[in-house]
C-alpha cells in the first residue's frame, strides 16, 4: 500500500483539499463567504487558504447573503468559478431569490445561451445545540428546483471527489455538508479525482430491508444495521449522495431484492426526501415487490429545539432506525 492509499483525513480537510487543488489548477476558481479569510470559516473549512491564495481570491464578504450569493452568481455567469460558503445553510433562506429565481433559471430563460457554474457550500443539520435557526436540513427545498444540482456527500472521500466533480461541470451545484460530519475521518487520496454527481452508493449490502439515507443518517443507518444483524435482520444501506438528479434506479433495484423500504433523513418528515423516494418506488415496477408498507423516518414536525434531550428527540436516532426496520420485517401488506 502506498502512503496515499492509507492516508486518512477529515471531511472538512477533504473539502479544503479539493478547493486548494482547484485553485492551484484554475485561476477562475475563487472563494467567497463570511469570515472565510483569516478566521478560516465558521467551521474552519477554508482554513489558511487566504494565506495561500490571497484575499483577492479568498474573499470575505460583508454579512450580506442575498448580495453575496448574487455576486457569486454574476461572476459565475461571466467566466469565474466561484465557491460561495454560507456560514449555515439556514442563511441561504436570505439568498433564496438569487439561488432560486436567478442561478437556477438563467440558463433556461436565456434559451441555453449562458451557464452559471456557481458552487454553494451549505453546512446543515442539528446535533450541535445551535437551535432552531442554525440547525435546519432544508436540502429538499432546493432539490425541488429544476436547474439546481443538490449533493450531500457523507464521507471525506466523496466530499473531495464530488466537489471536484462539481467544478468540472457548468450548472449551479449546492453542496449540503452536515456539521457532524466535519470531524469524521476517512481515506482520501492525495491528488485530483472525481466522484460523479448523480449515482448513489450502496454502503452495505443486505437482503431483508433497504434503507435509503442521507447525510449523518447514513452513519446512523450503518450503526443500526450492525444491531439488526444481531437479530438476523440483514439490512442494505444506500447513501443517496445526490438529491437532484436522484438515482432512483438503484433504489428500485434494491427494493426489488429486499421488498422493504425505509427512508431515513433529518429534514422534516412531511413533504421531504422520503416522499420522493417512496413515490419513485410506488411509480415503478418495484411496487409489486413490496412486502410491507414503506416507512419514512424523518425529522419531527417542529423546529430544532435547543435542550439536548429535545434536540435528540427531534431527529431520527439509531434506536429509531432499528425500531422501524424491525417493524418493517414483522409487518406484511
Amino acid at each position: 500500500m502506498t502512503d496515499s492509499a492509507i492516508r486518512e483525513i477529515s471531511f472538512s480537510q477533504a473539502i479544503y483539499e479539493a478547493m486548494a487543488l482547484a485553485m492551484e489548477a484554475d485561476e477562475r476558481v475563487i472563494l467567497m463567504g463570511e469570515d472565510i479569510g483569516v478566521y478560516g470559516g465558521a467551521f474552519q473549512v477554508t482554513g489558511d487558504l487566504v494565506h495561500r491564495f490571497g484575499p483577492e481570491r479568498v474573499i470575505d464578504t460583508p454579512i450580506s447573503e442575498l448580495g453575496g450569493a448574487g455576486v457569486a452568481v454574476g461572476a459565475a455567469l461571466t467566466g469565474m468559478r466561484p465557491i460561495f460558503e454560507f456560514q449555515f445553510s439556514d442563511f441561504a433562506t436570505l439568498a433564496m431569490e438569487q439561488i432560486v429565481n436567478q442561478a437556477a433559471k438563467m440558463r433556461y430563460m436565456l434559451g441555453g445561451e449562458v451557464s452559471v457554474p456557481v458552487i454553494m457550500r451549505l453546512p446543515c443539520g442539528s446535533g450541535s445545540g445551535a437551535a432552531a435557526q442554525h440547525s435546519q436540513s432544508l436540502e429538499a427545498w432546493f432539490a425541488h428546483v429544476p436547474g439546481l444540482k443538490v449533493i450531500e456527500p457523507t464521507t471525506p472521500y466523496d466530499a473531495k471527489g464530488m466537489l471536484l466533480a462539481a467544478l468540472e461541470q457548468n450548472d449551479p451545484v449546492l453542496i449540503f455538508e452536515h456539521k457532524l460530519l466535519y470531524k469524521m475521518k476517512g481515506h482520501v487520496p492525495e491528488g485530483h479525482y472525481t466522484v460523479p454527481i448523480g449515482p448513489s452508493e450502496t454502503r452495505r449490502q443486505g437482503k431483508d430491508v433497504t434503507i435509503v439515507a442521507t447525510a449523518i443518517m447514513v452513519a446512523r443507518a450503518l450503526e443500526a444495521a450492525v444491531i439488526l444483524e444481531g437479530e438476523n435482520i440483514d439490512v442494505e444501506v444506500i447513501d443517496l449522495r445526490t438529491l437532484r438528479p436522484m438515482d432512483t434506479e438503484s433504489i428500485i433495484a434494491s427494493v426489488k431484492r429486499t421488498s422493504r423500504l425505509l427512508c431515513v433523513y433529518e429534514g422534516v418528515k412531511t413533504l421531504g426526501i422520503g416522499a420522493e423516494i417512496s413515490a419513485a418506488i410506488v411509480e415503478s415496477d418495484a411496487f409489486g415487490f413490496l412486502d410491507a408498507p414503506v416507512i419514512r423516518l424523518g425529522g419531527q414536525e417542529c423546529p430544532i429545539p435547543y435542550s439536548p434531550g429535545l434536540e435528540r428527540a427531534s431527529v431520527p436516532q439509531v434506536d429509531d432506525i432499528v425500531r422501524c426496520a424491525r417493524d418493517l420485517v414483522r409487518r406484511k401488506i
Partner: protein
Amino acid sequence: MDTISNEASNLNNNLSRMANVPEAYRYFTLDQLKGALKKMYLIRRFEEEAEDSYQRGLTYGTMHLSIGQEASAVGICMPLSNADYITSTHRGHGHCIAKGAEPGKMFAEFFGKETGYCRGRGGSMHIADVTTGNLGANGIVGGGIPIAVGAALSIKHQKKNAVAVCFFGDGANNEGSFHESLNMASIWKLPVVFVCENNQYGMSTSIERSTSVKNIADRAVSYSMPGITVDGNSFSDVASASVEAVARAKSGEGPTLIECLTYRTRGHSRSDRNRYRTKEEIDAWAARDPIPRFEGELLNFGILNETMIAEVREAAEREIQSALEFAKSSPDPDPLQVANFVYSS
C-alpha cells in the same frame, strides 16, 4: 423626562450646581441609577457564569458574550417600560436583563431547562422575557430589524404611547433588512429607535473591511432620520441619547439611528481564535470597561458612595447565586413534548 420624581429633582438640584455633570444623571432617580448599576453587574456576572459553565463542559451549543458592552444595553433601556418593545440579537443576554428579565429563568434557558424563558426550546441565542416587551433575541443577523418596525407600526395603529427599540450589531448594517427597514420606518414616521451596537467587528470582519461609511450613523442620512454616534461604553452618554430618541419617537417625529461605539472583549463565540485582532487592541478597550467607568462617575458626582456601590454589587451577586441554584435544580423538558408550541391550536 416627564416622570421626574421629587427624589430625582432633589438629586438634580444638587447636581445642577456642579459643572460637567452628564445630563443623564439629572433625568433619573437615585433608585433608577442604582437599578442601572445593578443590571450592569447582573449582566457581567450572568455572562461570566455562562462562560464558566461552558469551560467546564456543563452547557451545550454556542453562546455570544457581551462582556464590555453592558453600558449600551442598560443605557438604552433606561427610558423604557414594559409597554415598550425591544428586538435583540444573538448577543442578547444584556438586552434581556436590561429590559427586566430574571437571571434565574435566563440561566434555566441557558441550561436547556423546562423552567427557562423559552422552556428549553431556544437556548442562549433566543432567551427573551416577552412579559417585559422583549420580542426575542435572534439567531439571524438583521432578523429583528423589520420586526421592530412592525412593532412600531402596531404602536402607531393602536395609538399607544410607546416605542420599539431595535438592537443590532455593526455587521447587520450590511444586510438588506437593515436598509429596507430604515426606509419604511422613515416614510411612515414610526416610533422606533434603531440602536447599532458597533463593537468594531462582525465576527472577524472589521467595519473598515465590511462597510462603505466610516460611521454607521451616517447611514441615517439616506433615510432622512437623525443619526448619532455615542461612546457606547459611557452609560450616561448612551442613556441621554436614548432619552432624546425615545422622546422624538413618542412625539410622532419618527425614527432615530443611534450608534453605540463599543467592543466585545471576549471572542465572537466559543469557536473564536482571535486571529483578526491584537491583544493590544483588546487590552486598550478593556481599560475602557463601562462598569468601572459608571462606578467612577457615580462616585465623582457624589451620587453613590463606596458603601452603597458595594451593597448594589453584593445584591447582584446574591441574585446570581440564587438564580444559578434555581436553574441547576430545574427539570429538563419532556422529550415527548418536542413538537409542542409549533402552532397556537
